[in-house]
């Protein structure tokens, strides 16, 4: 099985540790993982800004010869999945890959900290990694299954207000939505807030930092790696 790691450009710039942890996780499962170094951006920021782009085609060129492409970002994955490309159906978000392909679960069952999971919109409503409350379908959540143990979720499974370009155009409502999301999660007294999208987490973290909330916020790959590393 030939696997490629997609390194989302914003993660490469702003939190490269996430890419490293994702790579370590995949290698932990004895997978043959390559990191194509000429990759840039999947095109998401342009698509979402209404700018015509051929970046997804470039993504396709770079990644089409792999069996699976794994990415620690559900928003990039859903951009790719929505195109009609060779790579569209073999590009997976990390937890989705762990759940659907590697069929692992309960990785963080014995994690010492109480985890709150932020179900990001791209993960929940675009990739259907869980059942969104809008639909009449039975409850499930792949990410919770992969983590295992007692995972807290927000009372409202609504958007945290990041929305990429939205956060730059509507700073105030973006802030209010993030504040509401933090309050919703913090009410349940978690030790750490996590999720599959660093973009949402970065947004929540920058609100927590500005408002002075004492809460640890980190990407799911870091928690998963901590757990795997411990059991080694």
């Amino acid at each position, binding site marked *: 099985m030939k696997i490629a790691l997609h390194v989302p*450009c914003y*993660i*490469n*710039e*702003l*939190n*490269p*540790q996430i*890419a*490293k942890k994702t790579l370590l996780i995949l290698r932990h499962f004895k997978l043959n993982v390559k*990191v194509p*170094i000429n*990759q*840039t*951006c999947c095109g998401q920021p*342009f698509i*979402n*800004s*209404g*700018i*015509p782009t*051929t*970046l997804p085609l*470039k993504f396709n060129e770079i990644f089409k010869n792999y069996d699976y492409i794994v990415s620690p970002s559900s928003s990039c994955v859903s951009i790719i999945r*929505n195109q009609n490309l060779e790579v569209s159906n073999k590009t997976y978000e990390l937890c989705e890959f762990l759940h659907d392909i590697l069929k692992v679960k309960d990785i963080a069952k014995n994690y010492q900290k109480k985890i709150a999971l932020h179900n990001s*919109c*791209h993960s929940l*409503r*675009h990739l259907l990694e869980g059942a*969104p*409350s*809008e*639909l*009449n379908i039975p409850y499930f959540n792949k990410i919770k299954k992969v983590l295992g143990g007692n995972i807290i979720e927000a009372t*409202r499974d*609504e*958007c945290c*207000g*990041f*929305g*990429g*370009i*939205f*956060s*730059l*155009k*509507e*700073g*105030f*409502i*973006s*802030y*209010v*939505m993030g504040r509401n999301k933090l309050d919703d999660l913090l009410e349940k007294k978690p030790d750490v807030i996590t999720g599959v999208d660093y973009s949402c987490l*970065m947004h929540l*973290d*920058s*609100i927590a*930092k*500005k408002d002075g909330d004492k809460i640890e916020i980190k990407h799911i790959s870091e928690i998963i790696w901590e757990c795997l590393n411990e059991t080694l």
Partner: protein
Amino acid sequence: MKHYKLAIKFYKEKGPRHDKNLWNIRQKRDKAIKEIDKWEQLRTKASEIKEYVIEHLEELIEEFTKNAKKQGIEVYYAKTKQEHNEIILKLLKEKKAKKVVKSKSMLTEECDLNEFLKENKIEVIDTDLGERIVQLRGEKPSHIVLPAIHTTKEEVAKILNETNSDPTYLTHKMRKLLREEFLTSKAAITGANFLIADKGFAVVCTNEGNADLGVTLNKLHIISVGIDKLLPSIKDLGIFLRMLARNATGQKITTYTTIFGKPTNQKRVIILVDNGRIKRKKSEFKETLKCIRCSACLTTCPVFRRSGGHAYRYIIPGPIGSLLAPLVDKEEYKDLPFACTLCGSCEMVCPVKIPFSKQLINMRKYVTKNKIMKIAEKSIHSDKTFKLFSLILRLTPKPLLQKAFKEWSKYKKLPNIPQKRFISL
């Protein structure tokens, strides 16, 4: 003023309460749709029927017109809103009507009928509670099913010159005032939720019964309706009636569902309004014609709940409004498709499965002509130029970055930028 500014103003005054009220309705809706095991299949079916309607719109208009005429209903076709308003004026003048009662019509709002008739010295009384409240306040509805959701009971008391702000008391007072209007009007205007092509019927769903009262008391009944409201057959109606009220407010069905056909002792007129719909059918936004105006996409939208409907400035606000408004005036409403996080909630609640995520992105494209971003797109194809951007990002002093990202920095801390990248320089 653009959406982001109006949103700040609204949120600071009324946001949290507005958000809470609408979220409660969303939850009622969730409960109601979960009572129907095959809800998701119903959505697929409804979506298919509506797709058929769009594809066969012209034929269905013809079929409907023929069948409605057979029922003794007069049918007009208005290409524009001006034509629509002129037809109504002519009909009212014939009846020497100086006052007309109106119920349940977003379409007449779309056509600015109230203003037009007022200029022509005809008084229009909106008879639905919420619509009457906004009419008395000199505003437009802020939500298509809950037009006065942005007001408080104290504000309603104030427009009625009352000190008692008990909602039941105020409703009774309004009822009494409106009774007078019903008894002195000369014509009734209603909208319609559905038009049944194979029968020539118009279906009106309401909770207060004002449409029915207005129609019963008047010699002239005018139905103003968009051609997108057509359904091929009476057999299709059940599907939509099951979905509409549940999805809108969490009711199983609206209190009144009236099927208007053959008129007795009165004249019934139906004005089929195009006003851009045929043109839209030929555009990349044709799927917006599937909308049945259930309002669920407004109610669920996390931005709408916090910004209020008036921040959208168009008569239909929220996600569906953000797809319709720029088609009416691209320059004026170009901010609307961006007043959205692309969270996809609207797409999930929509009973006719309008693909909002795709359409909103297409609408962003439609309103955007950003040259700088286009140049950036070109350069990012190469990992070398990307690295150059990355270097610039790291060399730019923080205060400058804060300035560049000022909407972010006003409310949030900028993240620290690590020295090293993963795929490195």
